[in-house]
């Protein structure tokens, strides 16, 4: 019987090596452990006929054989299952390089993006955001800003009128006057919005454009504060490395007034096409609020001082993204808009 057991073991392994599927493995199991005809089952049955002296020894051997073959079958089954799974997964392979299934994202207008960025910087510096009407009176658009009728400064900003007493605002400064009329200092606001000038559209002019104007009024506000504030803002908007230059200029609304330039970021000040070889790019106008303006809104010009600045959003966007024609902003060409 021991001989027989050894033989079974050998043939089992021989046959097992040939089993390549779960099905074949099941057949193999059946041919050894099958209830009626299983080779091992039959051998176990013969144990009854063995002499009692040998029964224990042979029984032990057969049991060991049974356990051994069963665990071998389990092991092989496990291996085969893994292989089957792997084969299935391999057959399910997709082409991961195909594009994702997404709905295309829209694009915020570059002027909105630049406007938001400017607003966020000033908001973080403690400025509140105000707005006002686009159709204004000459009083708010000119007179209260120290630009009387027939002032040559009115030439520079040719105006659209809708009636004798109403015009399209040429800057967002009227909002500053309206705000000062209703609130006392300390005041620090920015006024973003749409403004209009009677200019025929070309590469650098648009009859519609956008501004963010700012105003700070309090006791003790100085020109140094104006410089510090705009330097902080311009570095935050363009880059930490930006150099800022203040040049004397003239605006009726402010005195002293300044044009503010930044160092050219294309050539770092060496001179190039973008900065017209000067190394500097003019970006905004600013100054200390003219005491005459305080008189209009009944602020005491001896007690309060303030500064104001005006930022052209188109200008900032053009400088930031190197856009050379202002018309792009209003042409709604998606090939332009989708770049932002």
């Amino acid at each position, binding site marked *: 019987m021991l001989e027989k057991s050894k033989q079974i073991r050998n043939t089992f392994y021989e046959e097992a090596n040939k089993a390549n599927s779960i099905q074949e493995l099941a057949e193999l199991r059946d041919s050894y452990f099958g209830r009626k005809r299983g080779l091992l089952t039959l051998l176990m049955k013969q144990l009854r006929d063995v002499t009692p002296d040998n029964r224990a020894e042979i029984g032990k051997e057969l049991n060991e054989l049974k356990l051994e073959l069963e665990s071998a079958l389990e092991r092989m089954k496990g291996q085969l299952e893994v292989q089957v799974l792997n084969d299935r997964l391999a057959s399910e392979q997709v082409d991961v390089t195909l594009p994702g299934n997404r709905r295309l994202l829209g*694009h915020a207008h570059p002027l909105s993006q630049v406007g938001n960025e400017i607003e966020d910087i000033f908001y973080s510096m403690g400025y509140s955001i105000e707005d006002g009407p686009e159709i204004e009176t000459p009083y708010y658009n000119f007179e209260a800003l120290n630009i009387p009728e027939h002032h040559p400064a009115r030439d520079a900003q040719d105006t*659209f009128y809708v009636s004798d007493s109403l015009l399209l605002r040429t800057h967002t400064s009227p909002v500053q006057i309206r705000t000062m009329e209703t609130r006392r200092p300390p005041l620090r606001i920015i006024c973003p919005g749409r403004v209009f000038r009677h200019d025929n559209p070309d590469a650098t002019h648009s009859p519609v454009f956008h501004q963010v104007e700012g105003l700070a009024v309090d006791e003790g506000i100085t020109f140094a504060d104006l410089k510090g*504030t705009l*330097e902080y803002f311009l570095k935050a908007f363009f880059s930490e490395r930006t150099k800022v230059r203040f040049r004397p200029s003239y605006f009726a609304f402010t005195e002293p007034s300044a044009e503010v330039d930044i160092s050219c970021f294309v050539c770092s000040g060496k001179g190039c096409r973008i900065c017209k070889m000067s190394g500097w790019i003019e970006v905004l106008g600013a100054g200390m609020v003219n005491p005459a303006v305080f008189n209009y809104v009944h602020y005491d010009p001896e007690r309060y001082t303030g500064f104001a600045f005006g930022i052209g959003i188109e200008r900032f966007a053009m400088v930031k993204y190197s856009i050379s024609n202002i018309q792009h902003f209003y042409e709604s060409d998606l090939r332009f808009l989708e770049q932002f």
Partner: protein
Amino acid sequence: MKISWQWLKEFVDIDVSPQQLAADLTNVGVVVETVEPLEADFLFELDLTTNRPDCLSHVGVAREVSALYRKPLKPIDVRLEQSPSPVNAHVTVEIESRRLCTRYSARVICGVQVAPSPEWLVRRLEALGLRSINNIADITNYVLMELGHPLHAFDLVRIEGRKIIVREARHEERLVTIDGLERKLERGMLVIADQVRPVALAGIMGGLESEIGFSTREVLLESAWFDPLSIRRTSKSLAVHTEASHRFERGADVNATVLALDRAASLIRRLAGGQVQQGVVDCYPQVVRREPLFLRKSRITQVMGSEIQPPVVGEILNLLNFKIVEGLAEGWRVDLPTSRLDVEREIDLIEEIARHYGYDKFLSTLPTWKEGSRRRPEYSQQKILKEGLMHLGYSETLTYSFVDELENQGFTDQQPIRLLSPLSTETGVMRSSLLPGLLRSFLRNYNRGMRSARIYEMGKTYRKNAGQVQEDEYLGMITSGNYQEKSVHSVTRAINFFDLKGDIEILLQLLGIPVKQVRFVGSMHRTEKGEPSCSPLRHYHPGVSAEIRWGGQKLGFLGQLHPKVCEQYKIKQPVLVAEIPLRPWYNVRATEKAFHEIPRFPSIQRDLSMFVNKDIDYSTIESTIQQAHIEEIQKIFPFDLYMGERLPSDKKGISISIVYQALDRTLTEEEVNRHHEKIEALLTETLGVEIRTPSKDVM
């Protein structure tokens, strides 16, 4: 204004290069746009601010240079040889309108030889862009460019009665100016007249008849000071702008008239010969004296943020011709020259000092604040909408606020707000709707072959409201073409009404507006009394458009554009648009969020299919079901809709699902059956529907 480097150096020594000078002038506010070499010279193109007429001349710019490099100005050569015969014998002057003419000075030169100018003079003028005429006219222009004071030369023989009268024009008086145009004059316009008629438009342009010609022998040189406002008005209303009017309307120097006369007369004597008659006729009834101004040291510090050393202040003021009359501990008493009418207040002097001291020398500090900042709620609402739109695939456009009047009319019944002088008829009125701009935006892309797009604009529309101008903030949306790009992942289909409606529902949701409470009322919908339920807009497809309502408020309109409108724009595919007034959206108070217990018991979903008359809305079916007052209904939704051959033409088939759930127990089959039967009965009874399928559980 153009400035010649060589000419400038006649008045001040300059040790730096032309390029360096340009940079330095720009830094004190006299902006040099370009420096161009011209033969042995350099030309500076200045971009001057309107407050600095004093820099509209070489001597004026030389003064800035002198202050810049702390160098003295050189004297101007006005040595003059005069004949013994007094000028009074040749001409008399009377100022009738003293309000508009403060001073009128004149000289007479007899026996001149009018001829072409010498080469050097022609070149100097031409370099600055002035055409050479003859030696006399050229000299007046030369002095204008040199000293900045406008002069005019008359042929004295042509002055009737040898008398100059400065007066306002009479009604409908006429004058032919040297450009050959006949000008119709009005009262209020200042003229130079002789005893019978006007001979010049004061400060603007001379008359043709008294113009200097080659036969002229006696020259009357005029050097006056006219009221800037009057010159500006006349120049504007007659649409003539000249070198002279440009300076007078900005303010010339009333005390420079004689200097300019003398300079011109000495040049005439040199280049055209003749005898300069003795003396000047100087009509100057009220000599202009400016009050000295007190400049406080403390105010400089208060405005600029740091102190400037008193000697520096003194030096700058002196070089700029502001003489210090008195120096005190608190500050300075300063004389104001008539050449700088723009400086009249303390702050003006501070600016003068600051710009020559150097803006770069002041500190940079940040102000300290005592308060926090705020943004109005609309600000964040707008941001949420814009971000939502972006995620929904809409790109933002910005278009002009003015549009074509006829085009505007197609989208509104509002009276438009017209521009008085528009750039063109296509931009003649303020837009009453965002749609013209959005359609043009779409069209621009469509015409170059881009068939699918989602675009929006957020901005103001304008209308008249009870005589007042009303500005309304709007969101306009436009979408057309395919729902998705052609893709391996899905089959493409056309965008439809419900895509746009869905987008709007998502926007409502983003602002916290309860979508369930928002109603969409179809354009063709009628009330029970048979009246229209809303006021439909004629540019929409009547069957595929709706008004958006929340309670009594109108939240906008959406739908397919009327095919006629598409035709006008030559768009050959359906276009969906929405017009949303943002004020009511911002005003809807978002519902406060409150937690509801998550149901612990299972829900049961039942389907219901029916045939129903076509004119019965889905919303009517849903509200009828609600009338059964079954509180276990959690949700009702339609999932199938069909019309067609198998149905009578006035019927549609609709299938809905109803989800039942109780918060405190598991619902039994019997309960749900009872509810469902009740609903079926109610629908049959009130809406006359025909129930198709027996109710059945769906898991």
